[in-house]
Structure formats: C-alpha cells, structure tokens
C-alpha cells in the first residue's frame, strides 16, 4: 500500500515515546539537567538528518518487530536501558495512542496536524538546546515538503496502511479507559456527534436538480446523530495553531498509573508481514536505519547513568525476537555498532542514580 508511512510512523510513535518518558522522568523527580539530557539525546538521534533521510525514502511499512527494534535503539541513544518487558509495554502504549489518533482523526489530512502536534511538543522538550530545535525544524520542513502535495485520497491510503498495521490491537490503557475514549473490550469509542470534518457538510439534506442545474426540491432526513459544522482548519505551516487536540500530550505528572496497560481477554498477538524469516528487504531497511542512527556528538562524561541490563547489544537484540534466524541477523547488525561503541564506553560501575532510572522504567 502506501510507501510513505515511515516518517509519520516514527514522528508519531517517537513522539508518544517521548511523552511517556517525560512523564516518567517528572514522576520520579528527575533533575532538570538529566531529563533534558535524555530528551536531547533521543531527539537528536531521531531527528538526525541521516535517520530522517532514510525514513523519507519510499518504502513499505514492515513488521512490528522491526519497528520495535529501531525504537528500542532510539531509546538507547539516551542514557537509559530498557529491558524487553519494559520495551514491550512502552511499545504497546505508543502504538495504542497512535492507533487512537489515526482511528479518530476526522479526515486523512488531519494525520499531518497530528504529526505536527507531536513535533511542536517535542520542540518544547528541547527548547533550550538550539541544535536539537534546528533538527526538529529541518525535519518539519522536510515533512511539509513531502506531504503537503498529497491528495486526500493518497493520505487516506496512508491512513488505511496504518490501520492495517494496527489491526487487532486492543490493549487496554488505563488513561484511555478512565477518559472513556476506550471501552473495556479495548475498542475506541466513536461518537455520532461533534463537528464534521473540514470540507464535509452536516448530514441531513437531499437536493434534487433539474437538467439545467437548478435546485427543484430539497428534503431533510433524520441523520441519527447530532453533528455540528466543522471548526476552523488548523495550520499546516512550521508554526501555528493546529486546532485539533489529537497528538497532543495526554500524560500529566499527577497520575503515574496512566501508563498502565492490560490485555483485553481475547487479544491476539500481532503478526504483520511474514512471521519468519524477516524478509530480505526488511533486514536491509533495519540495517540502514540502525546505521543512520550514529549520534554525531558522543557525550564524554556519561558517568553513572549508563546501566546496561545486558552485557552486549548482541544479547539485547536476541531478546527482542523469538525466532533464531532473525535473532542472529539482528544481533549481527547490532553487533556492527557495538564494535565501534566499545572504545567510547568505558566500564563504569553502577550507582544509585542509575538504579533509580532502572526502577523507573520497570514502572512502565
């Protein structure tokens, strides 16, 4: 289907990931400096030119497995290390939030406004680091350039591709249940009320015309809903009021339980794409994305915060996949970066701060 999903997928899922991490950092009273550092490291990697350019190449949306691997790698561009269980939960949370946004957006073009909402908030997170802000701005410009000319039909194809990717995921998120945007069975609430999308008329009117185009009759019908006219259109520029709220940060400091997830009873494990082995194209993409994620400035002083649950990235990669062949492929790819990193990462004993961070991630 659509060959242009990846940039939006990473911006939105990455954005949700940053929202959650921000919430966790605040909930644990992490210092401003350390929070900023985590944010800057991840944003710097995610919005790096190399990574974004790879994403912007036309290509298919691959499996959840590949996506999770790359997002884990992104998270690890910072000082954090996530164990597989934490990453699984984080991933579910991110995907359900994005699924909610894609499902409920009034029209396909709103997908861009949702992405811009994410980028606006990310810009706020790194506002004190001019270089990071520049990277976000550059990416935003590239997105505007790549997507502004797409027709509604092409954007709907993109949306349908995303919906297929999220199909059958009904993980319950306590924040969504509390706000009643999700039902106990894991499905999102879709109301037959509210404003219609920009460009749509409120349903309820039939007009009949004669051969000369003059209206000869109009009749109203009961629409079965209570719709109102569309609200004003949000801004598609670099800066501006997006108007819609989808894609904005839903997490606050006061409710740490909001990031809890639970499986609905009959939820199935998602398998998208060939279950095994990883398709050759998919492995190539993975290698390219991992390769493009080399951060330019490696911080010199990384004391204390760098806790690795695993001894090597190889082991970590192996944990992320079930089948051996794909695991060894991924380990090989991850291993290529490990060799280069080893010189820069001297052995450091763990200390309290690091353990706190670890505990914080376990809360996810």
């Amino acid at each position, binding site marked *: *289907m*659509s*060959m*242009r999903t990846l940039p939006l997928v990473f911006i939105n899922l990455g954005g949700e990931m940053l929202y959650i991490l921000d919430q966790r950092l605040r909930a644990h009273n992490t210092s401003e400096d350390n929070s900023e550092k985590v944010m800057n490291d991840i944003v710097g990697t995610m919005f790096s030119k190399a990574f974004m350019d790879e994403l912007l*190449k*036309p*290509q*298919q949306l*691959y499996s959840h497995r590949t996506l999770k691997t790359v997002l884990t790698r992104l998270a690890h561009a910072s000082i954090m290390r996530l164990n597989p269980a934490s990453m699984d939960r984080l991933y579910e949370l991110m995907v359900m939030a994005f699924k909610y946004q894609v*499902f409920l957006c*009034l*029209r*396909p073009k709103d997908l861009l406004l949702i992405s811009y909402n994410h980028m606006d908030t990310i810009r706020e997170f790194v506002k004190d680091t001019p270089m990071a802000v520049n990277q976000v701005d550059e990416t935003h410009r590239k997105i505007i350039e790549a997507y502004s000319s797409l*027709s*509604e*039909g*092409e954007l*709907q*194809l993109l*949306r*349908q*591709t995303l*919906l*297929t990717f999220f*199909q*059958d995921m*009904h993980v319950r998120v306590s924040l969504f249940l509390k706000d009643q945007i999700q*039902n106990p069975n894991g*499905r*999102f*609430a*879709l109301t*037959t009320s509210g404003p*219609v*999308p920009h*460009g*749509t*008329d*409120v*349903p*309820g*009117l*039939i*007009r*009949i*015309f004669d*051969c000369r*185009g003059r209206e000869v009759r109009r*009749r109203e*019908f*009961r*629409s*079965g*809903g209570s719709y109102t006219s569309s609200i004003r259109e949000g801004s598609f520029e670099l800066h501006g009021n997006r108007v819609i709220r989808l894609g904005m940060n839903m997490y606050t400091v006061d409710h740490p339980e909001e990031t809890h997830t639970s499986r609905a009873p009959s939820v199935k494990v998602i398998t998208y*794409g*060939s279950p095994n082995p990883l*398709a*050759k*194209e*998919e492995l190539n993409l993975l290698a390219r994305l991992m390769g493009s994620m080399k951060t330019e400035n490696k911080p010199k002083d990384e004391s204390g915060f760098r806790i690795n649950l695993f001894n090597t990235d190889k082991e970590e990669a192996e944990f992320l996949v079930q089948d051996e062949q794909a695991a060894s492929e991924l380990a090989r790819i991850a291993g290529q970066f490990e060799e280069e990193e080893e010189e820069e990462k001297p052995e450091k004993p763990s200390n309290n701060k690091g353990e706190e961070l670890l505990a914080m991630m376990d809360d996810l």
Partner: protein
Amino acid sequence: MYHKEKSIQIKNSASALYNNLSVLRIAPRRLTHFTVVHANMVNMVSASWDGLNYTHRQLQSKEPNVATSTSLIMQAAFCVLPSRDLLVVTSQKGIQMYESDGSIMVYWHALDTPETPTAQAVFARGIAAVYENYICVGVSSGAILVFDVPSKGSNITLSEVLEEHKESITDMASECSGSQECIANLVTADDGGNLCVWKSGEEFQLLNKIPGFDMSCSSVKLWKGTAVAGYGTGQIRLYEAVTGILHAEINAHARWIYSVDIAPFSGLLLSAAEDSLVRVWHMTITPETNSVEVVHLHNECVTDTQICGARFCDGDGYAFAVTGYDLSEIIRYIQS
C-alpha cells in the same frame, strides 16, 4: 424497516479498505458466498440459506517471490458473467482470478513493479464484470485493464488497457439494471473524484468524463444509466452517466463513505461510512422523463465501528450485510 439478524463470524477482522465486502447469491444451491479482506488474505464464508451450514475458506495473496515482503490485498469481488462467475482478488503485486467458490486459481496477472520503490504506491483496485464477457480491473496509475474471459477454462487474456484516469482507480461498476438498452455499461472512479463512463466492446469507448472536485470517490454504482457515487466528504451524488447532469446531491454521512450498493429490482440504495452508520434510501429513476427522486428510509448504527463494506444480499434488497474495521463478523439485517 430492518432488524438485525444473527451475524456470521469470520476468521479474521476486516481491513480498512473501500468496498470490503462482496456477496454472491447462488440460488440453485441455496447458499450465499461472502468475502472479506484481511491484510494479505481473503476470508470467504459460504452460508446456507437455512442458517445451518457455514463453510470457511481463506485465500492468500500470491507472491512471486517468498523472500520479498507480503503483498497486501486491496479488494476482492465476485464477477458475474453470463457463462460463469469468478472471484477476482487485487493486491499490491497483481490480480488473481479464482473460480467463485475459491477452489482453484484460474488466472494471475502480475503488475509492473519498479526495481526501486517509487513514492507512488503500486496496486490494483476496482473490479467489475462488464457485458458481455469482460472483467475490468483498475490500477494505481489510473490505468484500467480489460480482460477477455472465455466461457470456461483459464484462457483469460488482457484485451485492452484504458488510459484515461490520471489518479489511482478506487472503484468501478457495470450497469446493474439488467437492461440491454443502456448505452453506457461501465463507470470507473478515481482518487480525484473523477468518473469515466464507458461502452464495452472489442474496443471500449469513452462516452463521458465527469470531473470530481479533488475529493476521492471511493465507491460507485451504475443503475438505469445513473451513476451513484459516494465520496470522501460523505456526500452521495447521482449523475446521469452519459450527459454528466447532476440529478441529486445528498449530504449523507459525516465521514468518508466506504461503500455504496444498489438493489436493482427495487431501487434501494445502501450507503456506509466511517461514521459507523449504514443508511438505506430509495431511488426512483425514470430515464424517459429524466426525473430522479431520492428518499431516505432507514439508518443502522454499528456502534464504535468504522464501516468498510456494505452490500445487499439479494436483488430486491430484502437483506443486507455489513463489515467494519477490526470487526471479525459479518453483520446482517433483514426487512421486518
């Protein structure tokens, strides 16, 4: 007017694709086939009319090379021709044609896919059986492939490629009133909302082009020379196909329409959209006097569901069936 009947459970949930439900009624065997697309496979269920027997079958999309990524299916539709019925499945890789019970694949046509992926997606979408022995299939480039289908066997050939649309084909439909007098017997629709009206034959003839307003037409039907089109804005428009005269415009839905269907013997019209509503209308079309009338009859709400397929199960519109994104059932309604 209608009440809900027992749903048919399907093996997977329906994907968010236009016109994602096809129905074939087989009177001599007292059963009905239903097909629903889920990602890279087609779920087929055959239901006996007495409600006692349900047979399931799954058809996978064909991949020329296992090592490449999966091929997602865009649409599956039954094609009824005078001599035979076929099930046509369109995907990112090409077009598969099966015997109508899904038992044997009789034809495969691969789409030209570029070596390096381009930003423009490649897929086939839009299927129609056209008088007398043609099956037409649309492509993402806007081209329409016309296949000549013999009365039996697998010697199906590509007869013509129609290049009129500039945007991806979304849907197409042949004249369903059964009347041989209609001049036009095929209407095709694209992502820009443009409609092309054709007369079939050894060489298809373009009779008219009705411009869209840059709003995708996701579903179209042709009945008594009237093109009934559903759009992304939630509007339904009725055009006189050959002249392009707009006869009626309905602000029908609050979200993108995914399916329109017509019961040719009664003039009932079915529309379904992402707003979770299915609506039943009645059309009166008198070609002689050029008069068209549309009245609204009934609504059904499928709670919290973005509907992706809706079809009448018979020519009178006595029953209709509905599918929704993420839903693993075919919901049925019959007249009270």
